[in-house]
C-alpha cells in the first residue's frame, strides 16, 4: 500500500505547519530528508531536499506501527509555516516512489480500517476538526475518548444478558429454570431504556452545540431591537432606522458566546400591520421566537404586555438605556451599556441547557437510539403480557440490539461506512 502524506494543519500562512506522512515505508521515505529521532521523541532536524539544499529546520516526530493515529508508521514534520516551505516539502515527498498526496479523508479511513478508531470516534474526529467553539470541541472529545462507546458497551451488556435470560426460558424450558427470570429482564431492559432516554434528551440539547443555539430579540417595532442586535454582533448587519417596520424579515448572525455557538435573531417588530410583506416577516418572527432557546424581550416600560408568553429562561430588558437614568435591567444598543451583562446572562442561561455528560450527536446515532428505545418499550409491554410471548419479546430485543449495533458500527457496516465516508471532508 502506498504511503500517503498531506499537510495536517490548515493551509495558509501560519506559525507552524504540520506535514504528516503515513505508511509502512514512512520511516524509509523520511530518512531521505533527515535523520530520524527515536520513536516517541521529538528532534530538531535540518530537513534537506534530495539536492542537499536546506528546506527548513523542523521538529520531527516518529510513531511506530500500531501506536499512531492511522495505525501505520507515521512521521510528522513540523515546519515553519511559510507557504513556500510547505510547498517545497510536499513536492519533494510526492516525487518519492510509493508515496503520494492523501485523498480527502484517507488518514482517517486508514485509522478506521486499522481498528485505531471506531466509527463514532471517526465522526467525532471530523467534528473535532470542524469545531468552531470550545463546547463543540469538548463534546467531540467526549465521544473521541470513547465514553459514548462505553455507554453503548454497557447497554449491549445488559441487553445481551436480558436476551440470554429470555432464550434460556425458551430453549431450556424442559429443564430447571427459575420461573421469575422475567423480573431481572424487566429491570435490565428498563435501566437500559432509561439510560438511552436520558442520553437522547441530553442529545437534543447537545445537538445545539454543533448546530448552534438561537437567541431571538423580540419587541414592538422600533423599540431598538436592531440597534441592540448590531451591538451584539458588532457590525451593521440589520438595517436600523427610525421608521417603524424596517426589519422586515428575520436577520440572523452567528457569534461565539463564551465558547457556545449562538445565532442571534433580529425579528421583525411584533405588531399588526397593513403591509403584506411586513406581515410575512411578523409571522416568521413568531415562529422563530417560539423555537429560540432564549428570547430577549425588549420593552418600553416595566409590566408592558408581551407579544408571546414568557418562559423561565427568557430575559426582559428595558430599551434605550441611554435615554434613561441607569436602572438595573436596561440595555442600550446605542452606547453599549448593559450589553455585556446581557450577554453574560444569556450565556449563563444557555450553559444550564448544555449537557456536561456524554451525548449522541449525529443524526445517525440519534435515529438509532430512538429506534432502540422504542423497541425496548415494546419488550417491556410484551414481558408484562400474560401469557408472556417469549419469542416476540426476544425478537423485539434483537431489533433493539441491532439498532445499537448500527450506532456502534458492528452490523450493517455497509451503510454506516457510506454515511461516514460521504459526509467526511478533508482528511487529517
Amino acid at each position, binding site marked *: 500500500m502506498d504511503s500517503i502524506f498531506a499537510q495536517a494543519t490548515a493551509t495558509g500562512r501560519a506559525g507552524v505547519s504540520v506535514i504528516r506522512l503515513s505508511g509502512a515505508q514512512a520511516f524509509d521515505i523520511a530518512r531521505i530528508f533527515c535523520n530520524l529521532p527515536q520513536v516517541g521523541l521529538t528532534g530538531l532536524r535540518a530537513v534537506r531536499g534530495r539536492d542537499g539544499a536546506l528546506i527548513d529546520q523542523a521538529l520531527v516526530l516518529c510513531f511506530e506501527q500500531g501506536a499512531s493515529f492511522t495505525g501505520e508508521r507515521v512521521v510528522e514534520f513540523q515546519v515553519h509555516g511559510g507557504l513556500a516551505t510547505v510547498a517545497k516539502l510536499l513536492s519533494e515527498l510526492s516525487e518519492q516512489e510509493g508515496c503520494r498526496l492523501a485523498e480527502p479523508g484517507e488518514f482517517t479511513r*486508514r485509522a478506521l480500517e486499522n481498528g485505531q478508531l471506531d466509527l463514532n470516534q471517526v465522526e467525532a474526529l471530523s467534528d473535532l476538526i470542524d469545531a468552531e467553539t470550545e463546547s463543540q470541541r469538548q463534546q467531540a472529545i467526549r465521544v473521541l475518548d470513547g465514553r459514548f462507546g462505553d455507554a453503548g458497551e454497557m447497554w449491549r451488556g445488559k441487553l445481551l444478558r436480558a436476551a440470554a435470560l429470555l432464550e434460556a426460558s425458551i430453549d431450556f424450558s424442559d429443564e430447571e429454570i427459575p420461573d421469575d427470570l422475567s423480573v431481572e429482564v424487566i429491570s435490565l431492559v428498563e435501566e437500559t431504556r432509561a439510560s438511552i432516554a436520558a442520553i437522547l434528551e441530553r442529545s437534543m440539547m447537545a445537538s445545539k452545540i454543533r448546530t448552534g443555539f438561537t437567541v431571538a430579540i423580540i419587541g414592538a417595532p422600533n423599540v431598538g431591537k436592531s440597534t441592540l442586535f448590531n451591538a451584539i454582533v458588532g457590525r451593521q448587519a440589520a438595517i436600523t432606522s427610525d421608521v417603524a417596520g424596517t426589519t422586515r424579515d428575520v436577520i440572523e448572525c452567528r457569534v461565539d458566546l463564551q465558547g457556545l455557538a449562538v445565532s442571534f435573531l433580529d425579528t421583525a417588530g411584533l405588531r399588526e400591520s397593513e403591509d403584506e410583506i411586513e406581515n410575512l416577516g411578523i409571522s416568521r418572527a413568531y415562529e422563530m421566537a417560539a423555537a429560540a432557546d432564549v428570547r430577549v424581550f425588549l420593552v418600553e416600560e416595566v409590566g408592558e404586555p408581551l407579544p408571546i408568553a414568557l418562559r423561565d429562561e427568557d430575559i426582559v430588558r428595558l430599551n434605550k438605556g441611554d435615554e434613561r437614568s441607569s436602572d438595573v435591567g436596561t440595555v442600550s444598543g446605542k452606547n453599549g451599556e448593559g450589553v455585556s451583562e446581557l450577554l453574560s446572562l444569556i450565556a449563563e442561561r444557555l450553559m444550564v441547557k448544555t449537557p456536561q455528560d456524554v451525548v449522541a450527536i449525529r443524526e445517525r446515532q440519534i435515529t438509532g437510539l430512538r429506534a432502540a428505545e422504542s423497541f425496548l418499550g415494546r419488550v417491556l409491554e410484551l414481558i408484562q*403480557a400474560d401469557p408472556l410471548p417469549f*419469542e*416476540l419479546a426476544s*425478537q423485539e430485543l*434483537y431489533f433493539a440490539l441491532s439498532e445499537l449495533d448500527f450506532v456502534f458500527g458492528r452490523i450493517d457496516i455497509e451503510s454506516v*461506512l457510506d454515511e461516514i465516508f460521504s459526509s467526511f471532508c478533508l482528511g487529517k
Partner: protein
Amino acid sequence: MKHFDVVVVGGGHAGCEALHAACRYGLNAALVTLDKNKVGVMSCNPAIGGLGKGHLVREIDALDGVMGTAADLSGIQFRLLNRSKGPAVQGPRTQSDRQLYLQAIQALLAQQDYTLIEGEAAALMSNAGSVTGVRLADGSEVHARSVILTAGTFMRGTIHIGDKRVSAGRMGEKAADELSLQMESLGAVFGRLKTGTPPRLNGDTIDWSQLELQPADCDPVMLSFLSKGPAVQQVSCGITHTNSHTHDIIRQNIGKSAMYGGHIEGVGPRYCPSIEDKITRFADKSSHQVFLEPEGLTTNCVYPNGISTSLPDDVQEAYVRSIQGLENVEIQQPGYAIEYDFLNPQGLSSDLESNLMGGLFLAGQINGTTGYEEAAAQGLVAAIGVAKRLKGVCPITFDRSTSYIGVMIDDLTTRGATEPYRMFTSRAEFRLKLRADNADQRLTEQGHTSGLVSGQRYGVYQEKVKRLDQCRSLLSSMSVSPNQARQVGIDLGLDGRRRNGHELLSIPGVTIANLADLTPRLVEFDTESLDQVAREALYVTYIERQGRDIEALARDLSVKIPNGFHYAGVAGLSSEMIAKLSAARPASLGAAKNIEGVTPAALTAVLVSIKSQSLKNTG
C-alpha cells in the same frame, strides 16, 4: 472388485440418513459399518426431537428422510415442548422404544437397494487428490467415486469410568483407531471432544409409587408430516430429584471422577453437564431434577436423564441409591464418559465436502456436533452434496433464513466447533419464520425438484398447500368493518377501517372461532390449515421486518469484488486469508463467503476495503 457411486462409512444416524438419501437419488450405494445389527442404534438417550432438534427432524422429514418416520413408529411418549409458548419455539419430541426405533430404521433401509458390508474402514483411498474408496481392516477394498464418513464417537474412542479407561466406540463396541491414524498421515488434524451418559437402571427395582409421573400429551404431535398418530402404546416418565446426601457423596468422591481426576482432555458440552459438573459449578443448588425415562415397552431398562457421570461403579451405585425412589435400584450398565476424535468443520464446504480430498464428505459427530438429529441432518446434506457432484442434480439451498439445517451448516463451516455443537432455537435468528409446522413449505418443493422427494410425499404436500392457499385466499377476501367485528366479540376501535381475515387474526386474542362467526365457510377447513394461518398472522409484522434484514444480508453478499483486487492491501486480513482469497479470486462477497475457511471477520474487512476504494474512485 466392488465399485459404487458412494460408500457410506458408519451406520449411525448420519450414516443411515445419508444412505437412504443416496438411494432416493438413485445412486449405487454401499454401507460399511462395524456391526450390521447395530445399524440405527441410539447411543445415548432414546428420544428424538425437542427444541431446535424437533425443527431439524421436520426439515429432514420434509425432504423425505427417515428419522421422523422411525421416531413416530417407535414413539412411546410424545410431548410438544413449549406448548404454552409461541408456535415458533414449540418443538415436537418423543421418547422412543430403543429396539423399535432401530427396527424401523432397518426396515426403511431394507426397502432401498444398497449393499451392506460389515467391516471396519481402516483407510481412505485416493488418486490425484480425489477419493476412490475405502480399504477395510481385512485388506479388502471398496471402490467408490464418493465417500461419506460418519464414524460418530468411534474414532479413537476412549471410554472413562473413574480411573479405568477402555478403548471403545460405545460401551461394548470396539473403537476405530486405524482410520484416525491413516487420516492423520494424510494431513488431518483431529481435536478431542467428550460426552457422557448416565447409568442404566432396572425399572423393576424402582419404587414408582413414590414418584411424580409425567404422562405423554393427550393430543400427540408427530415428528413426520406423514404420520397420523402414535403407532404404539404411550407411557409415562417418572420425575425424582437429587438431594444434599447425593451431592455429598459426589463431592466426597469427586477426585475419582474421570473428568475431575484429570484423565480427560476433551471438551464436553456446557449444556449437557455431568452430575459432577452440576454439583461443582452450581454449588448453591441443593437439588437437581432427574427424569426416569423407560427405554422401551418390552424392556425394564430405564434411562435416568440428568445424571450422566464418569465416577467409578461403586460411587455411581451409592449416589443413585441416595435418590428418592431409587433406594434399592439395580444398575444394569454404569454411566461413562467417552472421548473421541473430531475434525474442525471449518475445513468443510457447505455441502460438507472435506478439504482433505475431493469427494470425501463428513457428517455427524465427527464434525464436532452432538445429537442424533444434528447428525441425521448432516447425513442428508452430505448425500445431496454427493448427488450434486456425481449427477449434477439441482442442489437444495440451505441458508440461515430458510432452514435450521442452513443455520447449523453455516455455524459449523464458518465458526467451527469448540465444544460439541447442539441445535437451539436461539441459534436461528429468523426463527419466527423457521417453524416446525412449515418445514415442508420451506423445503419439499426444492427436494422434489432435486429428485430427493418421492411422488407420494410430494402429492400429500401439494394437497396441503392447496388447502392452505384456499384458506389464505378466503381470509384475504374478508372485509370486516369494526362494527361487524365488535358483533362477534372482537374489540376494535371504531376507526372505520375494514380489515381482512389475516389482519384480524394478527390482533392479539382474536381466534379462528371469532372469524368463523363472520365467515362460516372457514369451518370447512381442516384444523391444521386453520392453525397454520393463525400462526402466520401472529408473526407477520416481525417476519416482514426480518425480511428487510435478510435483504440487507443478501445485498452485502452480492457486492462485487473488482477484478485483480489486491487482498494483501486489505488491513486486518491474516496471511492465511490473503492466500486463500488471492488463490480463489471470488467474484463477489457471497462467493468469498463460500470459500472454505474464510471467516466473517475477513469478509467484513474485504467489504470495508471495497467500499472505501470505490469512494476513493468516485471522489
